[in-house]
C-alpha cells in the first residue's frame, strides 16, 4: 500500500460560512475577487470599541444574532449541516459518526449580560440596605448601559458545539470540543484524521467555529493587536489583525470506506502535525521552532518532503510578530512555493480559522489555482521580504516522486499560548 493510501483520509463533505459567503461556491468567488465586506463592531454592542471586523452573513444565524455562546453554535451547525448533507452518509454512518469541533469564544464564559443582571440585583440590594441616595432605573441596566438577559448564562451551558452537534445528528460516537485558541479548527481536523487512521471511527465530522460577541472582541482590542483599517498580511505597513467570524466543517472517512459506498471524494487530508512552542504565552517563537516541528510532523505524516508542497496558506494574521515569524520561516524552508494569505478577505476567525483555511486549500486544489492575497502590496524586510500571491497563481504537482497525481497544499495555524498546527491537503487526483 502506498504511503498516500495508508495515511491519507478522504474528505467527502464540506460546509463553510464566513464574511466571504455561506457556501463553498460563494466563498471561493469572494476569495478570488476579494469581495467580502467589513462591518463595524458596533453591531455587536453600542459601546464596542469600533474596529472593523468581518461579520458572518445574517442568513447563517437561523435564530438571528443572539449575542451569546449560542451564536457560535448557530454557525457551527450551519456549516455542519451543509457538510453532512454533501457527504450523503447512510443513517448508520451518521449514527456512529465521531465529532471533533474546535472553538475559542464558543466555550468561553462570555455571558456578560447575564452577569450584569446579577451584579445589578446585588448592587440594588446593597443600596436598599444602606439607604444610599442611588437612582434605581428599574430596567436592570447598569451605568455602562448593558441590558440584562437572564437567558445569557443559560445559553452558555446549552451551546457546547460538539455535544449539541451529537444531539442534532443523533450520533453515539465520540464528541469532542477542542479549545486551542487559533489552532482549534486545524487541530480538530487533525485529531479527526488520526481517529480515522486508528480505526476509532469510520466517519468523523470535524472543523471549527467562532462567532464574535462583545467580550472576545473587547479582549482582543485591549491586547492592542487590532488594525483600525483593512488588515495587510505580510505587508511592510501592516498594523494588526481584523477579527472575523465563521465556521468550517468537513466530513472525513477512510479512503476504503468512501470508495466502498461510492462517495464523491472532494480531496484528502494527507497529513497533520502539531506542537507547542513552550517559549512565550502570547508571542510565537522567534525562530519558528514550534511551527517547524508541526510542519515537519505533518510532512512525515504524509510521507512527503518540503519540495512536494505546491501551495501554502499561511496563518498570516497581519500582526507584526506572527507575519515576521512565518515570513522568515517560509522564505527559508519553502523559497519557491507560492504563499497565500487569505485573512484579508475573511478576517481572523479564531477557532474557525484553521478549518476554514483547510477548506480554502481544498477549493484552491480543486480549481488548480490560488487567489491573490488581498491586503498585501509591499514586502516587508522583517518578514524576509516574503511576497504572498499577488495574482491568481496556477498550481502544479511539484515533486517527480509524487506518482499519485496529487497536488499538495500546506495550511499553517499559530495560536495564543504557543500552539502550532499544520495540515497537508491534497486534491482528489481526478482533475477536479
Amino acid at each position, binding site marked *: 500500500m502506498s504511503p498516500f493510501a495508508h495515511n491519507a483520509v478522504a474528505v467527502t463533505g464540506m460546509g463553510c460560512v464566513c464574511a466571504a459567503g455561506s457556501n463553498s461556491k460563494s466563498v471561493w468567488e469572494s476569495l478570488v475577487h476579494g469581495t467580502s465586506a467589513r462591518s463595524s463592531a458596533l453591531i455587536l454592542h453600542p459601546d*464596542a470599541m469600533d474596529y472593523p471586523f468581518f461579520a458572518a452573513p445574517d442568513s447563517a444565524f437561523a435564530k438571528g444574532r443572539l449575542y451569546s455562546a449560542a451564536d457560535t453554535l448557530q454557525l457551527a451547525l450551519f456549516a455542519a449541516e451543509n457538510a453532512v448533507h454533501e457527504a450523503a452518509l447512510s443513517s448508520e454512518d451518521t449514527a456512529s459518526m465521531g465529532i471533533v469541533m474546535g472553538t475559542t469564544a464558543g466555550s*468561553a*464564559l462570555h455571558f456578560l449580560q447575564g452577569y450584569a443582571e446579577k451584579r445589578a440585583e446585588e448592587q440594588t440590594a446593597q443600596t436598599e440596605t444602606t439607604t444610599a441616595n442611588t437612582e434605581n432605573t428599574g430596567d436592570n441596566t447598569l451605568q455602562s448601559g448593558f441590558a440584562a438577559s437572564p437567558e445569557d448564562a443559560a445559553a452558555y451551558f446549552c451551546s457546547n458545539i460538539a455535544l449539541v452537534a451529537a444531539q442534532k445528528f443523533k450520533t453515539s460516537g465520540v464528541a469532542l470540543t477542542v479549545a486551542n485558541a487559533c489552532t482549534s479548527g486545524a487541530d480538530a481536523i487533525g485529531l479527526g484524521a488520526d481517529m480515522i487512521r*486508528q480505526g*476509532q471511527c469510520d466517519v468523523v465530522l470535524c472543523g471549527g467555529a467562532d462567532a464574535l460577541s462583545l467580550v472576545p472582541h473587547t479582549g482582543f482590542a485591549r491586547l492592542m493587536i487590532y488594525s483600525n483599517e483593512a488588515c495587510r498580511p505580510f505587508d511592510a505597513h501592516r498594523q494588526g489583525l481584523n477579527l472575523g467570524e465563521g465556521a468550517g466543517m468537513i466530513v472525513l472517512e477512510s479512503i476504503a470506506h468512501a470508495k466502498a459506498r461510492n462517495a464523491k471524494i472532494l480531496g484528502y487530508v494527507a497529513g497533520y502535525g502539531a*506542537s*507547542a512552542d*513552550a517559549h512565550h504565552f502570547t508571542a510565537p517563537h522567534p525562530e519558528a521552532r514550534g511551527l517547524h516541528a508541526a510542519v515537519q510532523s505533518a510532512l512525515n505524516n504524509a510521507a512527503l518532503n518540503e519540495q512536494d508542497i505546491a501551495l501554502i496558506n499561511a496563518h498570516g494574521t497581519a500582526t507584526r510578530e506572527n507575519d515576521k515569524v512565518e515570513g522568515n520561516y517560509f522564505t527559508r524552508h519553502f523559497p519557491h512555493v507560492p504563499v497565500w494569505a487569505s485573512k484579508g478577505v475573511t478576517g481572523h476567525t479564531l477557532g474557525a480559522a484553521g478549518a476554514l483555511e483547510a477548506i480554502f486549500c481544498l477549493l484552491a486544489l480543486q480549481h488548480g489555482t490560488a487567489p491573490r492575497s488581498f491586503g498585501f502590496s509591499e514586502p516587508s524586510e522583517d518578514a524576509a521580504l516574503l511576497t504572498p500571491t499577488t495574482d491568481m497563481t496556477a498550481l502544479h504537482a511539484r515533486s517527480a516522486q509524487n506518482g499519485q497525481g496529487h497536488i499538495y497544499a500546506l495550511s499553517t495555524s499559530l495560536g495564543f*499560548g*504557543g500552539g502550532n498546527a499544520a495540515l497537508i491537503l491534497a486534491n482528489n487526483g481526478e482533475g477536479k
Partner: protein
Amino acid sequence: MSEQIFSASRPLQAPSQQQAQQLSIAGKGLVHSLGDYNALCRAYDNGDTCPAQSDLPKVDTAALADFLPKNVLRRIPRYARMGLLAAQRALDDSGLELKRENIGLVIGTAHAGVQMSMDFMDSILDGTPRLSSPTSFSHAVNNMGAGLLSLYLGLRAPCHTVTQFTLSFAGALQTASTILHAGRAEYVLVGAIDEQDPRFVRTCPQDLLPPQNSPYAHLPLTEGAVFFLVGKANAKEAESTNAGENAPVQISQVWQNKNSSPYAQNVLQHPFGMHASLYGITPMAQALDVLIALHNMKNTQTTHVISCADAHYASLSCIQLGI
C-alpha cells in the same frame, strides 16, 4: 469485574479496535481542597466526608515555590497554578527521566479560568470596554492553562484543551490516547483542572449547584487539578501480575455514548460523581473517581469502570481501569 456503585448489566458495548488504544498510567498528581493524593486516600480510607463550605481549606499551591521563582508565580493565575503543581506531581510520581519536548499535554476543563473570566467581565462592567483589563482577558482564554503549563514545564509535543463540562476529562483522555497512538508524543500529561468563583455561582446557581431537594445539596463546591502521566500500554505491562502501588494500570476503554440502557439511566441519576460526599461538587469528579479507583486497585487486580454523565446532553462517558 467490579463496577463501582452502578452495578447490574454491563454498561455499553465495547467498540472494536479498543485493544489498540490501551494506555498505561505512569504517574499521578492531585491538588485539591482536600490536599494531595495521599490526603485524598487517607480521607477515603477513613470514610471522611467533605467539610462544609465555610470550613473548606483553600487549595494550597505553595509547593510551587520549589520549582518557580516568586516573581514568576505572582503572574500565574490560580487556575494554572493548581494545574502546574498537579502536573509536576504526576511527573515526580512517575520517577521517569523524560525529555520534556516529547511530552504532550491535554487538559479537560469544564469552564477554564473562571476567576480571570469574571475579572475581565467585571473590568468591562466597572467602566467601559476601553478600560477593561487585557491581562485578565489573556488569562481567561480557554487554553490559558495549556499555554502556561507547556511554557513552565517545557512541554513541546501537542498540547490540547477539551472543554465540555463534566465530560471534559474523558474527552481529554480520549484525545491523549489518539495523540499517543499516532506517535505524536512519547508520553502525555492528561488531566482535569477546574476552579470555583462565587460570582460565577451566583450568576447561574441552577446550572452549578445540586437541586435543593437533592441528596447532594449539602455538599460544598470544591476546586483543584488532577493529572496523570500516561503512555501507550505495552504487551509486557499487559501481562504483569504485579498489582502493587506503582504497577502500571491500563486504561482500556474511553468513550462517550448516548445510551438509554438501564445502566446509563442509573448513571444519569448520579451526576455528581461516585464519591461526591468525599470530594464535594466539582466538574472534575470523574478524574477524582479514577484516583480513588487506583488507590483501591493497589493491592488487588480488579477492573473498575468509572462513569460520568451530563444530564443536559444525555451523554455518558466511561473509563475502564485494569485489564
